[in-house]
């Protein structure tokens, strides 16, 4: 098994800053936009995005955590994954939702998240922001609107994201080859 570092500080901060610039360019407003981080690891990326956006626009955006475990399409087809908490303390009805996740691969988790989100209302618009886009790995017709880095990977390879918030020494994104 080999592991290759594909993204870390300071390039990671530059990437986050650039993604925020793109969001601002697309005219996001704190009054009508909410940010939803996807459990388990998208929540850390969502916090970073929200902080950076807050700094650049001198305001704050509501951030929530969405867990889509109960909406997965592989339930009873693989070992159960214990659910994580969902914490959305605002309404998403008629809001512009920026769905944030660390890695986009098959697109199945995003599909589940879109379903899970319906329980909280009907958003006006949903956009997807991911840190790593594993192109050519998609099982579903889903694409991200904002991409930190595109990586061409084999299905046998894995992208591992380590955040400081999880107790790691530094933020590192690895490509693992079995």
């Amino acid at each position, binding site marked *: 098994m080999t592991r290759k570092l594909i993204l870390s500080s300071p390039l990671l901060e530059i990437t986050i800053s650039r993604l925020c610039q793109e969001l601002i360019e697309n005219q996001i407003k704190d009054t009508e936009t909410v940010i939803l981080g996807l459990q388990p690891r998208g929540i850390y990326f969502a916090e970073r995005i929200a902080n950076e956006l807050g700094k650049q626009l001198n305001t704050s955006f509501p951030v929530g955590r969405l867990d889509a475990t*109960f*909406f997965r399409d592989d339930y*009873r087809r693989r*070992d*159960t994954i*214990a*659910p994580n908490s*969902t914490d959305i303390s605002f309404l998403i009805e008629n809001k512009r939702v920026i769905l944030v996740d660390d890695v986009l691969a098959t697109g199945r988790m995003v599909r589940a998240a879109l379903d899970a989100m319906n*329980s909280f209302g009907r958003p006006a618009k949903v956009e997807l922001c991911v840190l790593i886009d594993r192109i050519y790995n998609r099982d579903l017709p889903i694409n991200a609107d904002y991409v930190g880095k595109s990586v061409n990977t084999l299905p046998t390879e894995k992208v591992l994201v380590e955040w400081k918030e999880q107790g790691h020494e530094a933020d590192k994104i690895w490509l693992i080859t079995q």
Partner: protein
Amino acid sequence: MLKSPHLLGIKDLDEESIHLIVKTAKEFKEVLNRPIKKVPSLRDVTIANVFFENSTRTRLSFELAEKRLSADTINFSASGSSVKKGETLLDTVNNILAMKVDMIVMRHASPGAPHYLAKHIKANIVNAGDGTHEHPTQALLDTYSLQEKLGDLAGKNIAIIGDILHSRVALSNIYALKKQGANVRLCGPSTLIPKHIQSLGVEVSHDVKSTLEWCAAANVLRIQLERQQIKYFPSLREYSQFFGITRKMLEELPKEIVLMHPGPINRGVELSSDAADSPHSIILDQVENGVAVRMAVLYLLASRG
């Protein structure tokens, strides 16, 4: 992941599994507070609720939990069925399974009935109460409700007061509480406390007042007259005099305690009305948590396929 494909009792459940069920239930409670309270997880699962004994709360709670998980459900009650014509338990259940049912939620008057079924059939089995033996989902929802109020239960003093002898809720709760490291004291007339129950690591008392002073939470049980073939005490009135809990008793305690009851309450017997409706009581929280806990149990069991 749970180690067994069935939930037959708390006795065979390890602490890790209790923890997993409670953690999952917490997430389901959040789901139940959403504007849309339904998830699609069990959409390809069919569950039969097979009740050979009467039930209000447990049956409604299971049924609602199943519907919130998008499962298909069928209901069976012994009254008005072919059981009256002499059909055996195994034949009845096998006939239900022939209709492509994946899970059985069963209540039965005979202790061990779900264990017997588990040996002979393929579906997942959830014990919804077997005679005077166990009522695992009640103990799990009691654990969850207690944890909400008291946090980690290790080292906490919990009392179970009333008809311990005929109570499946008492036995399941003793197992669950001991596995989590709580101190358990049983209180009731000596005729209603099983002999040798101390071998489960519990204390026994016959004095309600000192028990209430000792505990952080009291789980009060109903006198199960329907299971009593002989007289265990002179009269309900006398029982109520010695073992009934009133609001005045709760207010005179040096600290605030949590009051629980698995239902149905016999107001004026084990609990006075003002005690049952007092701020100490979490009886309706228990009912609310029951749906979330049963969703967690069904979700975790069905995931094994």
